[in-house]
């Protein structure tokens, strides 16, 4: 099995996620981009697990999924509480804390 196409795809997804975090303005979309980055990691994990012939990477993918789910709980709680206050989920509006 050649791993390069899979790792290439995973790197592409990771880059799309990272660029999305940097350019998008809605906190929910930023958060979704972070999730995309985590899933790109998962793709790398399972690809390398298959290449190395051990199960560590596949187990890691499960751990990452659980952690991502926990992160969703915390993240949405924070974003929703901000939305209730400001009626906006834009990360640009949250700019009270400055030098």
């Amino acid at each position, binding site marked *: 099995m050649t791993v390069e196409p899979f790792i290439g795809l995973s790197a592409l997804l990771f880059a799309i996620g990272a660029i999305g975090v940097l350019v998008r303005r809605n906190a929910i979309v930023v958060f979704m981009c972070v999730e995309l980055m985590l899933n790109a990691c998962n793709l790398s994990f399972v690809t390398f697990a298959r290449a190395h012939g051990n199960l560590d990477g596949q187990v890691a993918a499960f751990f990452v999924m659980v952690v991502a789910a926990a*992160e969703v709980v915390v993240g949405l709680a924070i974003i929703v*509480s901000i939305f209730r206050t400001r009626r906006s989920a834009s990360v640009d509006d949250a700019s009270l804390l400055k030098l």
Partner: protein
Amino acid sequence: MSAVSVQAIVGAAPSPIEAPDVDYATISPLLIILGAAVLGVLVEAFVPRAYRFVTQIAVAVVGVVAAFVATVVVGAGLDTVDGEVTGRGGPTAMGSLSVDGPAVVTWAMLLFFGLLGVLLFAERRLDGGLSAFTSQASTPPGSADERHATRLRIEHSEVFPLAMFALGGMMFFASANDLLGMFVALEVLSLPLYLMCGLARRRRLLSQEAAMKYFLLGAFSSAFFLYGIAMVYGYAGSFGLAEISTAVSSQIGGQNLLLAGMALILVGLLFKVAAVPFHAWTPDVYQGAPTPVTAFMAAGTKAAAFVAMLRIFFVAFGGARWDWAPAVWAIAIITMLFGAIASIAQTDVKRMLAYSSIAHAGFLLVGMAGLTSGDGVTSVSAVLFYLVAYGAAAIGAFAVVTLVRDAGGETTHLGRWAGLGKESPVLAVAFTIFLLSFAGIPLTGGFISKWSVFAAAWDGGAWPLVVVGVVASALALFFYIRVVVLLFFAPPQGDGPTVAVPSPLTWSVVAITVAVTIVLGVLPGPLLDLVQQAGAFVR
């Protein structure tokens, strides 16, 4: 991998799964803290509201003290391991945790910070009998619902179990012996902190904004950390630090994966320790978060993340030192200089302490670039000593910040602190001692800790870093002295600052941290011996 070997795995007869052999006594401090956290969740569900806050304090304090005692017992029973460098203890729990000398010292340190943090969280005399945390985080700030909840004296006593989970995650992070465990520990320590940052009672808009910034940037950086882990796994075929170390020293090929993995892991960790250029969140989060949370976070996260960083880079990537050392050098230099220069421009006390924390991350990185073995002060022991001294002074400084108040809660504008020396000489002297320790003036813990990281770096051949470090210390000293002059000699603005009368909880935190700061400066021997004897990391 060829198709044949896949068949071999799939087609083999299922072997019985062996029960893992776990030495529960060795990891008991971790289990006690996580048990206290779970018990706190149950208390939240079953204890009537009137008794909940007090019960939570009791559970947290008893848990931390019991875990501290267990840590001392575990630490006293560690076997000495002879190798290239002397170590103590070793991997346990099927190799997923390494309970060695540095890990046990870090546990004790984190539990000490955790106890001080819980005491600050429990303070209710400053704000009319209410804690520093919002009545109900789900209500919008300034709404009728919020006022209603405040009138009913509803409180978020969940902060105690959250703090225990964060503390458990920090302890796990400092002792994890494989990269996957480190990722899980990183999230277990971060997620509760994101939430606690958004729970301030006063200035809730700032607090929520701090929580969102911390969360989004923290999640972003842990994704980098995770991708780095994936690359290193691709290189070594294992998550274990020992296996990665073997691969680094013996494997030929795949260097690109290793370099990419090390760089991404370094980015994730440097974010957590607030090193330049990954520091942007620090001032905002330190300013917006409730001050007791800032105190706990400033001391605890930095300690856990630094020990984990040393463990990864010394144990797993020790053989590739010449690949990562230049990056650490460069980041140490810009972090020290940036932290020192940027703190000069600050007008807010909490932001100033945040920039000071950034500068201290730079000094700690100087320690990381130092000597790994030998008779002198090693990197590990210097960094451990530094973390104790810095953490104690940081918690004390933020405890003082909770006490200087006006009608709107804490008053953190530096100008409003003018004349504090007349209003409350004791508090002003305590704050001065913390600032002098940050600056590294002799007879404070900060001096010995700066000396030890510089000594480790000098012996390790990193003398340019020491030169820059001394220059940055001198720059920072100018600023700290300016604040001290402001406290004692500047005329107060208007009525001057008011100092709230706290309960014995906050007073004891200030007293303990002042005592630790001075004792570490005057009699550093016992702690220096302890961190020296802790030895190196054992994989």
